[in-house]
């Protein structure tokens, strides 16, 4: 378990390092950020001065090093648009995204569980029980922004039941969360259902029946086994969710870090872009780390590291 932890942590650090390096390269291949940061109409001396103040005239290697130091401590220059430390801006926007993502993820997980149990547990199945999977399949094929647009149209505009933008009332979260959940539900539902079927087809489920267990009990045991891959996908999807928030937040004007990333990019607010991306990357990697650790807790085989791979 300890070794597993160490290995996993090493991978995590590596991933963060690689991703941040990629971000650094992208930013620096596109020219001197100071040019953009200086107020409009600034003379070249002024730009040079600013460039110096922000350290953009130092050798790239040195900048790279300090970029890392700063990134890991969450130190970024002030946001150009918000005129305060970029990380502060990100952190202030964080709550909204976390709330949205958590609600969406929880909703999707519950829905996936229900769909999976409904369609995956019955022996033989039959086409009549398949319809939720068709629905899931459809969801999977609809672009997130389109779902958002349709939801706004139907529930926000035509029926006027729900607010369509911002995060002001308790019901504001419904539409964006549903939209976001629609993106996560398909993989979750399918993994859970397919694995449930898989587990039910495994010899141990048959053993359970042979020992006199009821179908419900057999399904319950199998469901536990199918949770493991589902949790892995959940972790990966949590990452995709962070990307998905970019679109959903801009459809619904949800004041989170996703929308922030877009406006920061549009405003060429480099420090903010950096802070936002760094944050999202680290969050993504951490979520997956947690998921892997969770896997270790859930699966006795991983926990004991018997040396046998599955």
């Amino acid at each position, binding site marked *: 378990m300890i070794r597993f932890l160490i290995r996993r942590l090493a991978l995590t650090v590596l991933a963060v390092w690689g991703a941040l390096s990629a971000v650094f390269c992208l930013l620096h291949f596109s020219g001197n950020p100071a040019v953009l940061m200086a107020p409009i109409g600034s003379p070249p001396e002024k730009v040079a001065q600013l460039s110096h103040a922000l350290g953009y005239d130092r050798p790239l290697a040195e900048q790279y090093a300090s970029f890392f130091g700063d990134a890991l401590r969450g130190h970024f220059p002030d946001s150009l648009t918000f005129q305060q430390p970029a990380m502060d801006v990100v952190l202030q926007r964080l709550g909204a995204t976390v709330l949205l993502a958590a609600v969406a993820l929880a909703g999707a997980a519950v829905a996936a569980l229900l769909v999976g149990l409904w369609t995956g547990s019955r022996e*033989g199945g039959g086409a009549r029980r398949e319809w939720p999977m068709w629905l899931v399949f459809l969801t999977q094929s609809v672009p997130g922004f389109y779902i958002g647009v349709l939801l706004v149209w139907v529930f926000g505009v035509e029926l006027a039941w729900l607010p369509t933008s911002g995060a002001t009332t308790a019901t504001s979260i419904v539409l964006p969360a549903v939209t976001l959940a629609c993106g996560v539900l398909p993989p979750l539902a399918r993994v859970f259902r397919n694995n449930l079927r898989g587990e039910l087809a495994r010899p141990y489920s*048959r*053993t359970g029946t042979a*020992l006199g267990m009821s179908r419900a009990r057999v399904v319950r*045991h199998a469901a536990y086994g199918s949770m493991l891959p589902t949790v892995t996908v959940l972790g990966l999807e949590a990452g995709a969710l962070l990307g998905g928030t970019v679109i959903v937040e801009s459809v619904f004007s949800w004041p989170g870090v996703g929308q922030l990333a877009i406006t920061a990019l549009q405003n060429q607010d480099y420090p903010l872009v950096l802070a936002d991306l760094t944050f999202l990357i680290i969050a993504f990697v951490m979520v997956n780390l947690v998921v892997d650790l969770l896997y270790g807790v859930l699966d*006795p*085989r991983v926990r004991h590291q018997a040396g046998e791979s599955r």
Partner: protein
Amino acid sequence: MTEVERVNPLLEVSGLSVAFPDAGVEAVREVSWQVRPGETVGLVGESGSGKSATGLAVLGLHGPRARITGSIRLGGQELVGAGERTLRELRGRRVSMVFQDALDALNPYRTVGAQIAEAYRLHHDVKRSEARTRAVELLERVGIDRPGRRAKEYPHQFSGGMRQRVMIAAALVNEPELVIADEPTTALDATVQAQVLELLAELQREMGMAVVLVTHDFGVIGQMCSRVVVMYRGRVVEQGPTDRILTTAEHPYTRALVASVPRMDDTPGTRLATVPETVAALVGPVDEESLADPALRIPSGAPAGNPARPATPDRGPGRSPGGGVGAEPRFGKGRGGEDPLLQVRSLTVTYPGTLTRPPLKAVDDVDFAIAPGESFGLVGESGSGKSTISRVLLGLQRAGSGSVHFDGEDITRATRRRRRELAAGIQMVFQDPYGSLNPDRRIGDTIGAALPRGAARRDRVAALLTEVGLDPELAGAYPDRLSGGMRQRVGIARALAPGPRLLVADEPVSALDVSVQAQVLNLLTQLRRDRGLAMLFISHDLTVVRHMCSRIAVLRHGRIVETGDREQIMERPGSDYTRALIEATPSPRRPA
């Protein structure tokens, strides 16, 4: 009618058919047999003959996609078509099942104690703690050390044999009247198999339950069962008391089956009887389909005694002139002074540890030598390092230390290019007939992969196919058309293609049904003699090694326990381990 048969049967299967309409498979066709209280019935047959399908039908475990007709009566109660409730009541309580691979058959996410306790609580209204106590009690009963502690462990923390004991404990926790054991020992080493079978027999005596033992091993039948049901293609071709079936079976298929297994007491190196040959000798040509007809009795006038064992070893075309054992060269004997073809000295192979696994010395200071034309056997239990040695010989695995000299040249240090040239010297026959052929390449391309393309190659491939007894037309076919035995012949043809002098055969028959096994063993023996090939024959099955090899090395935990002539090893084993191995090998001759 004997005494026993007058007792009312516990389980009565009559006219049972199991079909899978979706797959278009009729797995079981109108079989009828009975189990009386307390007796052990063997269900034997080759792979796919419907043994498991029959066993599963008894407990109604087939699911909705199977169509089951006929009748299964347990103590008079009809089970075919019985409601889920009724079945649930008797599953595990009156009838239990032990499955083949206990690693899969046990829930990997739950402790073994919890699983046994749950099995108990399913049928007994007791408290959790009480069920736990009972679970520990059963673990102790099946011979698990420190049962209290081990009950809290997970299946993967147990060895194969122990898992099978746990499985048995779970099946017996409610003291059922009948246990159906579906190949409970197939995945186990001979010594472990012996222990598990012994345990089963002991518990049976103690609890007085009846056992249906599904197996394809006549050795196990001979050792455990009082009666045998022989299945072929979903039909019961014959049933009766074990003794009679093993000696004077009425059905030619049964006789052929018994005869095709190498035994500890026959003459090594003689040609094994194969099923088609035996059947043809007994009743004339019959096709495979009609062989399943139980009514196909042996015509009167067939040789009595042991009719299935042909008297002369020289049957069929292409006999080698010398025959017999004496023609085999032996290193250090016979052709004294000649250099060995292969000389392995202090070979050690260590698999590096990973972050999750400590390093493993799979082969430890191994020495042996093989003379040109000699057949050398390597026997040992699973994980003893047999395959690792063969992989080193073929350059698929680096040697840690020590040397392997082939024809005087140390090939452990051979470069890639040299290795390619050496391919003409050493070739390999693989174990798995399915995995060893590229499903996407034609047979001819597989056999001739290393030969230059052209008409010459085509001719050579055709010649090789003929030599291994296959139709040369098959060169254009894909492997999915071939049966296991045919595939193994293709594998042998491929190994012969570069014209090697040493053939390494790593468990070449362990994946094959016994009837096919005999054919492949015969082919190997014949090729070796015709071509004067030296062979390293690797197996976990002592009877097969004894049959094939004149000298034998016994491997254990990567070390060679002893090396010697066949007779010496078999009759005067120099180590306790070898002796245990010989004793654990079930033989159909042993009394039930």
